[in-house]
């Protein structure tokens, strides 16, 4: 996996071309175009994340859509991590995936107006299908550990970003991950199955 390399300027501002800061500030005030831009940037990734965690394939897209609805509904609480809204979206997706039926019910009226995608998983999607053993193993973890595993192990987010996204220190995140990996040893994908991103 290639880590992100934000460019430091004299002002100390990250200048990654996909920095969400400006778009998020516009989107949270109701700028639909800015929200659409964030959707374009992150929907595919959020959907893949949901696909790894949601047992019923038919629920995957609704969970991914709900993550964006939650991004808007809870806009006052959203924290960017190194200028990206993606970690917040992935944490939220992890939370929603734990009980997809219940968590998407809040948005039932919205989702009911959408069509359904008529497709079969392509080659790229095969690696993004939820493993029942993993799903069961994640359910046994604490919420924080589950989010950390989902972000770092399944989605390949840098440990520091994941730690910030879930609100723990980096050393604590490292320790938690170590214990969680031990508990999930047989269920976790091998490192070469972890998808590179960005």
């Amino acid at each position, binding site marked *: 996996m290639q880590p992100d390399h934000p460019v430091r300027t004299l002002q100390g501002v990250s200048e990654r071309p996909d920095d969400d800061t400006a778009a998020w500030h*516009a*989107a949270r*005030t*109701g*700028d*639909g*175009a800015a*929200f*659409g831009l964030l*959707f*374009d940037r992150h*929907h595919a990734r959020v959907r893949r994340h949901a696909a790894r965690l949601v047992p019923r394939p*038919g*629920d995957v*897209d*609704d969970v991914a*859509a709900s993550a*964006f*609805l939650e991004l*808007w509904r809870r806009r006052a609480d959203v924290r960017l991590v190194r200028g990206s809204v993606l970690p917040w979206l992935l944490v939220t997706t992890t939370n929603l995936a734990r009980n997809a039926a219940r968590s*998407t019910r809040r948005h*039932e009226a*919205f*989702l*009911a*107006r*959408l*069509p*359904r*995608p*008529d*497709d079969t998983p392509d080659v790229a999607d095969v690696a993004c299908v939820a493993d029942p053993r993993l799903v069961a193993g994640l359910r046994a973890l604490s919420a924080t550990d589950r989010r950390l595993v989902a972000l770092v192990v399944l989605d390949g987010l840098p440990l520091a970003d994941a730690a910030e996204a879930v609100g723990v220190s980096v050393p604590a995140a490292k320790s938690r991950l170590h214990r969680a990996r031990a508990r999930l040893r047989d269920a976790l994908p091998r490192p070469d199955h972890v998808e590179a991103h960005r």
Partner: protein
Amino acid sequence: MTTTRPLVPREEYTAALRTALVEHVVRTAPATRRRRVLRRLSVGTGALVVLGGAGAAAAHLDLLPGTERVDRLAEPVVVTATGDHVIELGPVPAGATHVDVEVRCHDDGTFWFPGGAGGTCTDGEVTGYAVPADRSIAITTSPGLRWTGVATYTRHEPTDVAVNGNGDTYGSAGSGAAPDLVAAEATNGREGYVYARDLAGYTPTSPADAARWQEEHGHATRVVPVYLSDGETVVGQFEIGPGEGGGVVTP
């Protein structure tokens, strides 16, 4: 989700989801950064006499006597467009008198509602206005301006003006009433009232009317006091005539 939903190709689903999310955000966004729409009623060397649009009344001056009560009669229709576009609203509901339109610009530019009201906007700025009920609302813009419009059938009903201790009526003149004291914003930003008689008994009825009045009377600046509703306590002044902005007559 157990609802029966049509099956479509993934690309189509993703596009539909994106559109629905954008509309959801626009439709449910709080009414921040809104401003009163200005209808330019006179021209000249920087001269600007302005009247607020009827749509601004409900948002800004709920308690002002003489303003309009606005009831929403249908779900909002949301469109996103670049450049000129006609918002199609479907059949006019019974009782609808207006369509309240909000335009959020996604670039800096200029746009106009039907009837010629409009003006400049900046990226992210929202402008509200009410136009007579019509199933098609044409928005014209400067070339390439990206914008999102929310249009809603509404019923506007005027409320009565009030009477102060001196027996003078006061309130908004925006709903067709003719109070003695007309709601206005002073040059210092304070809100109050000016005597209608101080406005030379003149209320522009159209841009052409205002331009004609400006031609005949607009070469000198007059300053009139702005009062509280008692008609006695002065809180500021209102300028009439050429020159930079002279306060705002509140609708």
